[in-house]
């Protein structure tokens, strides 16, 4: 502590290079420890990620390409078998359909809540409810919809009383359609949270400028508003797609595991519900990771564009 003055005067130079912070009053060993501590924690985190996130993923990829006699592509090409192709197809359809629902619903609700005439209480209710609903998913959400639109759900029965039998009309909560309806419960709020800052970023001046040039509201949106929002909307769409594509809890609880989705198929292989090589599970997982990698790659390109209009 007696060295405080000296330490203070040397502090700027200490931080100039990559050299270490000085633990006041300590000698060579203390300084060494002080220098090592930051790197210890950074390395610790990276090792943890490597051991429990990267390594398991790589193992899956390796396993996918390893058969009884070394390298093989048969497991990966096996994903083209009808059973797995349908699962991927369903998962992608579900992802697209529910992302689209979320996009439309989230955009219009966000747009409405940001209208100058929208009362403040409405805005804060929407914001806080969106935060809750975006995080309300999985098993409880599934049961909430079973209570509502399940084959014995209250709305289903009420509609039947007034002569509308939705199940006879082909609707089923336990189908892709039903799941899209259920997923909208977290997808719409998710989109709302993502898109609100982008809509807020639309400047009043742009609107005024286009009106000054004689544009109608429709022309403003078609030529100015939507093109500016497109990268944000697309980015949000991809995030929503990812969350639906990799969803497991909600579809499992809704259908008790009886639906052809990739996530459900993987869990069936893992729990031994179906007789198949463990490599099949690994191949399915690798396939999912591939799809998600493509999604994230597009997302990172898109988000570069959406950042351009911010700030």
């Amino acid at each position, binding site marked *: 502590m007696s060295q405080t003055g000296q330490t*203070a005067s040397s502090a700027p130079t200490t931080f100039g290079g990559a050299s270490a912070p000085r633990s006041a009053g300590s000698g060579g060993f203390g300084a060494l420890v002080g220098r090592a501590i930051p790197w210890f924690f950074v390395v610790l985190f990276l090792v943890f990620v490597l051991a429990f996130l990267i390594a398991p993923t790589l193992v899956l990829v390796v396993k996918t390409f390893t058969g009884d006699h070394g390298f093989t592509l048969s497991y990966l090409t096996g994903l083209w078998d009808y059973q797995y192709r349908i699962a991927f197809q369903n998962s992608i359809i579900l992802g697209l359909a529910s992302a689209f629902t979320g996009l439309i619903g989230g955009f219009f609700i966000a747009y409405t809540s940001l209208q100058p005439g929208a009362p403040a209480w409405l805005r804060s209710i929407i914001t806080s409810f969106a935060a809750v609903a975006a995080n309300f998913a999985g098993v*409880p959400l599934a049961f909430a919809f079973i209570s509502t639109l399940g084959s014995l759900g209250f709305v289903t029965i009420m509609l039947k009383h007034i002569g509308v039998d939705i199940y006879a009309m082909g609707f089923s909560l336990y189908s892709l359609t039903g799941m899209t309806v259920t997923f909208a419960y977290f997808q719409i709020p998710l989109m709302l949270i993502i898109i609100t800052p982008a809509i807020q970023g639309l400047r009043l001046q742009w609107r005024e400028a286009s009106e000054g040039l004689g544009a109608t509201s429709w022309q403003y949106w078609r030529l100015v508003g939507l093109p500016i929002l497109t990268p944000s909307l697309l980015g949000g769409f991809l995030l929503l797609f990812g969350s639906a594509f990799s969803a497991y809890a909600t579809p499992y609880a809704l259908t008790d595991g009886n639906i052809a989705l990739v*996530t459900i198929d993987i869990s069936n292989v893992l729990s031994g519900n179906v007789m198949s090589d463990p490599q099949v599970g690994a191949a399915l997982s690798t396939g999912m990771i591939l799809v998600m990698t493509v999604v994230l790659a597009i997302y990172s390109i898109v988000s570069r564009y959406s950042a351009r209009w911010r700030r």
Partner: protein
Amino acid sequence: MSATIAAAAEPEAKLAANAPAPRPRPAHGARTRLSAFNWVVIALAAAYFLVPLIMTGIFSFWEGGNRYGFSAYIAMLSTPGFWTSLFLSVRLAIETIILSFALLVPAMIFVHLKAPKLKPLFEFISNLPFVIPAIALIDGLTTLYTGPSWLISTPNYLVIPYFFLALPYAYRSLEVGLTTLDVQTLTEAGQSLGAGWGEIIFYLLLPNLRTALIGAVLLILTTVIGEFTFASVLLFHTFAVFINDTGQNAITEAAALSLFAFLLTWLLMLGVLLTGRKNAATVGGAH
């Protein structure tokens, strides 16, 4: 933000618009009332989001026929699995929070301080749990780690995947906190007064990161308490697994539990909104 920039750029416009001070930035236009179309959107949204909650509520009070009462709630509270599974989930959430504080918080602080070049790597890692779906991660973990049994045979094992599940949200919340805080200056000030790393982190940085940390804690709690995938595949009886098992034979109890889970989420997110206001880094939990 845009309002200040615009106002600075156009002083006349600022003066002209000074009269009623339009504080909340309008999306566009100058209409002051909501149109019929807006109200239709609100009504539809309210119906879609409220009806399932109301129906779940009614369903949870249903006792068969025309009788309604609290029997589902009484049954729920007296089922031993309710408390044990809820406590297990809360315990796992707390352990995940501790692990995040031990691993993520110091690493992020030091990256901000010492190695800003590593920031893109951390950003990339924080996105990985999004690319690797939960079910694929659990597939990989069970393939790679078949032992030791002290690690994989107790529910505590779940803390590892939970850490990654919560990583994107915890990372974002902390990143916002660290970016707005002048970590460099604070640390230099601390060091010039003779503080070591421990003192700097515990007395200087963590108190200043309070908001971000509380946000991260609540997001981890929400994510972990609702988590189903990892626990169900690894056969541990957490709260979400308990709700699912209940739904197999007692659907009204499951409705009561679902409503309870909604209220729990609501409470936790209310906490996030109240503490974080600005950095509501709330993007989706475990679906």
